[in-house]
């Protein structure tokens, strides 16, 4: 199936619309059909909302899944949080008939039903299915750069349910990055969580995660980072600005994967809205692309 319900979530359309723009552009360029899912709520957040009430989290996720089932299309997410929530909620319900019945009893109140007959994909998976070789054959601007790829947590784990890649040694995003020309680096703390979920609890405690990651990527010789989740993106892009105020001078551009893919396909800095990044990508692009 190459026709998706695009699940935009909260953070991308309301804070980081340039990630939405680049994602739409590359999907269209690759001939992948999609329609934004109308009526969907927050996925909801697999950390905060699930922590407050597992059941409320499950009910709301089931409603979003039911909306996509009515469209009859697999869900495509841009955010790893949305991916984890929707994929795990689906699996939890399918494995537990009593729970599914309870949830469907509640969904009846709003004339909806969860059946579990559509799947949930992250955009990186959808692009991987297009194939790194095919993507490579389409690129107009090959990039020469050393990239620190960051997978984040919710794209990979729990791996038994998400089934995206080997959780210990994932490769898909590295392969997709290398298809555009760059070299994906091995670096310490490659698997370290971005710490974004700490922001709701204690913002200062999330700085060490950002600092460790940026230090280690810089030390390994990275020219930029590539991420697959808007929360990881915000941590490293906006987080650098905050760390600068604390006296740590990092200057590592951060790209969401579809932005780098967009550049490679020939879309411009302006079209991709890269000026909206808080850590400038200009010097990097002037050196590597222009």
């Amino acid at each position, binding site marked *: 199936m190459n026709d998706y319900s695009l699940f935009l979530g909260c953070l991308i359309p*309301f804070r980081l*619309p340039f990630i939405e723009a680049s994602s739409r552009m590359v999907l269209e360029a690759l001939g992948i059909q999609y329609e934004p899912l109308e009526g969907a709520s*927050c996925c909801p957040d697999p950390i905060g909302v699930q922590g407050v009430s597992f059941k409320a989290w499950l009910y709301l996720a089931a409603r979003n899944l039911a909306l996509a089932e009515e469209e009859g299309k697999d869900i495509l997410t841009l955010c790893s949080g949305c991916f984890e929530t929707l994929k795990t909620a689906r699996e939890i319900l399918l494995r537990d008939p009593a729970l599914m019945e309870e949830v469907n009893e509640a969904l009846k109140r709003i004339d909806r039903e969860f059946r579990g007959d559509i799947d949930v994909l992250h955009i990186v998976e959808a692009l991987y299915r297009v194939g790194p070789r095919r993507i490579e054959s389409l690129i107009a601007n090959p990039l020469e750069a050393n990239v620190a790829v960051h997978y984040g947590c919710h794209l990979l784990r729990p791996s038994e349910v998400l089934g995206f890649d080997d959780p210990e040694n994932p490769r898909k995003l590295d392969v997709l990055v290398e298809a555009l020309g760059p070299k994906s680096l091995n670096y310490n703390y490659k698997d370290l969580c971005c710490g974004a979920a700490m922001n709701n609890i204690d913002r200062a405690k999330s700085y060490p995660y950002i600092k460790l990651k940026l230090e280690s990527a810089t030390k390994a010789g990275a020219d930029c980072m590539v991420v697959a989740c808007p929360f990881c993106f915000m941590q490293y892009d906006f987080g650098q600005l905050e760390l600068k105020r604390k006296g740590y001078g990092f200057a590592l551009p951060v790209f969401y994967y579809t932005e780098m893919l967009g550049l490679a396909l020939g879309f411009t800095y302006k079209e991709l809205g890269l000026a909206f990044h808080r850590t400038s990508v200009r010097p990097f692009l002037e050196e590597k692309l222009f």
Partner: protein
Amino acid sequence: MKLQSISSFRHRVSCFPEGGVSLKYCMQCSLCSSKCPVARVVESFNPRRIVCDALLGLEDEVVFKDGVWFCLSCHSCLEACPMNVKVSYLITFFKNLAVERGDVPEGVVEEVKQIFKTGRTLSLSSAVEKRRASLSLPPPPSVNVDEVRALLKEFVNVLGGEREG
């Protein structure tokens, strides 16, 4: 008396749908703590210890103020566990218990309130609206908030409803 309370707490844990029954498989090897990114940063946070306290039925220790909320649900512990204990989901359940006691970080309460109000965690600022227009993006899809509220009506109290102004 003591034993009875241990078994009743463990029974409650075992009823949690996602991994509740896995608690009893823990053999305290500590791989969860060694893989935990939070334990690197927050000295007081130790998933093995949380599971140990749960095994001993020490509900007050398990659900101590703010402790469980440091868990980021990154599932590194679940992935590392050789006994298939779903540590991260157990901690989710302990967070749910903390909520019943009124122990919820303000940031989390705000997030949930916002979902009740708008269906989403964030709303559209005029600055972002302009950015969307400059990127030729259509308005974001709408949410039927009444539907969200109707679906979640039995959770209003749990979800920070008591703090509604």
